[in-house]
C-alpha cells in the first residue's frame, strides 16, 4: 500500500513539474469564408503563435490550401496588415453599466479600437439597452466614431440578443473581413430573439462574434448575494462558438482596453487568401476547406448555393427526347390491334317497341329487332335501321307521326 501511495504521489508531482503543453506549432483559424463571388472563394485566416500572439509576415508560400481534399491554386493573397476590416462595436448601456466605471471603461476601450483603425478599415457603433440604437453606421471616419462613442448614455434593461441581430443587418453592403465585438454585463431580459436565432443569423452572414462578458457572472456567488445580477456565460459562449468567434470574460472595466487592442491588432493581421474552386460547378454541395500553416491546420466550410443547376446541350437533349417520344407513341401501337374498344358502341334505343315492319308471310306487325314473326314463326330479317330511326325524335326518342314538323313529346323542331 505504501508503495502504491508513493507511486501515485510521484506521478502527481511529475505532472506538476512537467513543462506546459508544448505549443511551438501555431494555431490556425479560418474566421470567415466569402463565397459570394463563387467560383472565386476568399477565406480569412488568423494565425496565432504559442503564446497567443499574432503571427505576422507569413507569405503565400507558407499556406497550403485544399478544398474537399484537392489542392487549390491560390490566386490572391493579402497579408501583413493589408486586409480591410469592418467591425461593429456593440456596447451595453444598461443602468448597471454605470457602476464600477464599467461604461467609461467600455468607451475608453472602444476609442482605443478606433485609434488603431487604418485608412482602409471601417467600423460602426451600436449601443443597446431595451432596444438597440445605431449610434454610427459603418464609416471610415474616426472622428464620427469617436463622437458616437462619447455620446452613449444610460437606459433601462438589457437586450443584447436583439442588438446582435440588428448589428448583423448593418453588414448588408459591407464586404471584407467582418466582425462584431459585443459587450454586456448583465442577463438578457428584454430580447425577442433567442440565443440560437441571433447566433444563426450572424453565422449565416459569416460574421464572427467576439462576445465579452464584463464583471461578474450570473452564477457567481457574489452577484447572487448582492442581487446585482451578472452576465450569462453560457449564452455568450454559445454565440461565440456558433459563429467561429470567441468569448472573453473580463472581470474589471480597466482590462477592456487591452482586450480591444489585442482584438484590433489580431484582426488586422489576418490573411485574406483567394482561390478558384477546383470544382467550379454549381452543384449545391458543401465544400470543406483546410488550411495548413507550419504543421497546424484550421478549416471551415461553405455551401455552394444552387438548388438546381440548368445547363443544356443538344446531344444530351436528343438522347433524352427519344425515349420520351417512344413512350408517347407506344400506346397507339398497342391500341391499333383492338379495332373496337371494349365498351359497347351501339346506342341504346329507348323505344324498342317502335313498329317499323310487317311479316312477309302473314303481314302481321313485327317488332323492329324481331328475328321471327310472332304470329307465324317465319324467320324475319329486318332491314338495317339508319341511325337515328327516321320516325323517332332525336331529342326525346318518342316515335313520331310521319311528316311531323315538331315532336309532340318534347316540342323540338324537327329537321325535315
Amino acid at each position, binding site marked *: 500500500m505504501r508503495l502504491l501511495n508513493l507511486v501515485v504521489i510521484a506521478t502527481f508531482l511529475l505532472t506538476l513539474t512537467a513543462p506546459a503543453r508544448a505549443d511551438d506549432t501555431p494555431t490556425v483559424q479560418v474566421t470567415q469564408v466569402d463565397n459570394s463571388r463563387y467560383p472565386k472563394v476568399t477565406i480569412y485566416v488568423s494565425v496565432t503563435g504559442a503564446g497567443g500572439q499574432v503571427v505576422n509576415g507569413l507569405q503565400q508560400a507558407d499556406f497550403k490550401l485544399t478544398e474537399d481534399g484537392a489542392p487549390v491554386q491560390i490566386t490572391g493573397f493579402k497579408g501583413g496588415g493589408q486586409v480591410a476590416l469592418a467591425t461593429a462595436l456593440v456596447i451595453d448601456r444598461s443602468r448597471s453599466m454605470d457602476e464600477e466605471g464599467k461604461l467609461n471603461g467600455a468607451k475608453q476601450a472602444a476609442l482605443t479600437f478606433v485609434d488603431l483603425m487604418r485608412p482602409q478599415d471601417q467600423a460602426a457603433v451600436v449601443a443597446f439597452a431595451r432596444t438597440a440604437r445605431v449610434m454610427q453606421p459603418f464609416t471610415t471616419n474616426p472622428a464620427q466614431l469617436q463622437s458616437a462613442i462619447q455620446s452613449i448614455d444610460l437606459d433601462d434593461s438589457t437586450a443584447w440578443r436583439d442588438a446582435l441581430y440588428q448589428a448583423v443587418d448593418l453588414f448588408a453592403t459591407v464586404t471584407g473581413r467582418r466582425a462584431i465585438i459585443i459587450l454586456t454585463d448583465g442577463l438578457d431580459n428584454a430580447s425577442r430573439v433567442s440565443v440560437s436565432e441571433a447566433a444563426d443569423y450572424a453565422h*449565416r452572414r459569416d460574421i464572427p462574434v467576439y462576445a465579452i462578458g464584463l464583471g461578474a457572472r450570473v452564477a457567481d456567488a457574489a452577484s447572487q448575494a448582492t442581487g446585482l445580477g451578472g452576465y450569462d456565460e453560457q449564452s455568450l459562449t454559445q454565440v461565440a462558438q456558433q459563429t467561429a468567434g470567441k468569448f472573453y470574460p473580463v472581470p474589471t472595466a480597466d482590462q477592456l482596453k487591452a482586450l480591444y487592442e489585442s482584438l484590433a491588432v489580431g484582426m488586422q493581421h489576418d490573411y485574406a487568401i483567394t482561390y478558384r474552386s477546383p*470544382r467550379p*460547378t*454549381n*452543384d*449545391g*454541395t*458543401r465544400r470543406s476547406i483546410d488550411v495548413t500553416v507550419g504543421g497546424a491546420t484550421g478549416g471551415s466550410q461553405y*455551401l*455552394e*448555393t*444552387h*438548388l*438546381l*443547376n*440548368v*445547363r*443544356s*446541350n443538344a446531344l*444530351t*437533349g436528343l438522347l*433524352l*427526347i427519344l425515349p*420520351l*417520344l417512344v*413512350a*408517347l407513341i407506344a*400506346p397507339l401501337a398497342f391500341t391499333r390491334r383492338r379495332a373496337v*374498344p*371494349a*365498351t*359497347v*358502341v*351501339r*346506342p*341504346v334505343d*329507348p323505344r324498342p317497341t317502335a313498329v317499323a315492319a310487317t311479316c312477309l308471310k302473314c303481314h302481321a306487325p313485327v317488332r323492329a329487332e324481331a328475328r321471327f314473326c310472332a304470329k307465324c314463326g317465319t324467320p324475319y330479317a329486318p332491314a338495317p335501321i339508319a*341511325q*337515328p330511326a327516321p320516325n323517332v325524335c*332525336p*331529342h*326525346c*326518342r318518342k316515335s313520331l307521326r310521319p311528316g311531323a314538323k315538331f315532336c309532340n313529346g*318534347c316540342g*323540338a323542331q324537327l329537321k325535315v
Partner: protein
Amino acid sequence: MSKRLQIYYNAVFGAIGGLLAWFVVGLFPTANWNLWIATTLVGAGAGLFIGGAVGMVDGVVIKRSARRALIGAALGGLAGAISGVAGLLIGQLAFIASGGGLVGRTLGWTMLGLFLGIGEGLVERKMKRAAYGAVGGALAGFIGGLIYEVLTQVFLKDSGAAQIFLGALGLVLIGASLGGITAAATEFIARVIDKGVLVVKSGSRAGNEARIVERARLGSYDGCEVYLPGGQGVAREHAIVLKRPDGFLITPAPTAGGAPTLVNQRLIPPSGQKLNDGDTIAVGNINVVFQAR
C-alpha cells in the same frame, strides 16, 4: 380512354415538358448570373413548360380538340410560370437556410413541386384539384430532390458533365411526377372518397371516362368535363352532375335552353334527380352511364 392510360399520358407529357424546360432554360448561361435572377428564370421556365405540357393533355388526348389543347396549354403554362417562380425562390431560400445537404435539397425541391402542383390545380379553379395538386406536387418534388442529391454525390468527381445530365433528369422527373402523381392522386383519392364516374357509351368519344371531382358538365362545348361533340341534339352545356354530400345529382344545365336530359329513359325534372349506380343518361342521341366506383 381508361384512367390508367390518362395517368400515363399525363406523366409522359409532364416529362416532355420537363425536358423542354431544361433545354430552353439551359441555353442561358445562368451559372454566371446573380443567384436570384437565375432562380427566377429557372422557376418560370420549369413551370411554363411543365404546366403547359400537363395542361394540354386533356385537350390532346381525351377531348381531341385543338382549341381545348391550346387553352389548356396557355392557362397551364401561365399558372405554372407564376407558381414555378414562387416555388423555386422559396425552395432556394429553404435550401440555403437549412444548410444544404440531403435535407436542404429535398426540402427545396419539395417546395418547388408543392407550388407547381397547387398552380396546376388552381387553373381548373377547383379547390379540391389544388389540394390534390399540392399533395402530388410535394411528393413529386421530394422524389426529384432526393434523386438529384444522391446522384450529385455519386457523380461528384465528374461534377461538370454530371450537372448537365442531372439538371435534365431532375426536371424530367419532376414533370413526369407532377403529371402522373397529380392525375393518379386525383383518381385514387376520389375513388376512395367520392366514387362517381361517367362513361361515354356512344358517339365519337365513346369509351371516354370522366371522374367527377365536385362537378361534371356534359355537352358539346369543349370545356365540358364530359365532352360530346358531333351528337344530335346535344346542347353546348347540356346537363350538370354535381357531387353532393349524400350522393350525385344530375340537373339540366341552365344554358341548355330546355333541351331534355333523360335518365333511364325518363325525363329529369328541372330541379334535378339523384343518380344511382348503372343509370344511363341520354344527352341528345349519346348515352353516358354513371358508375359508382
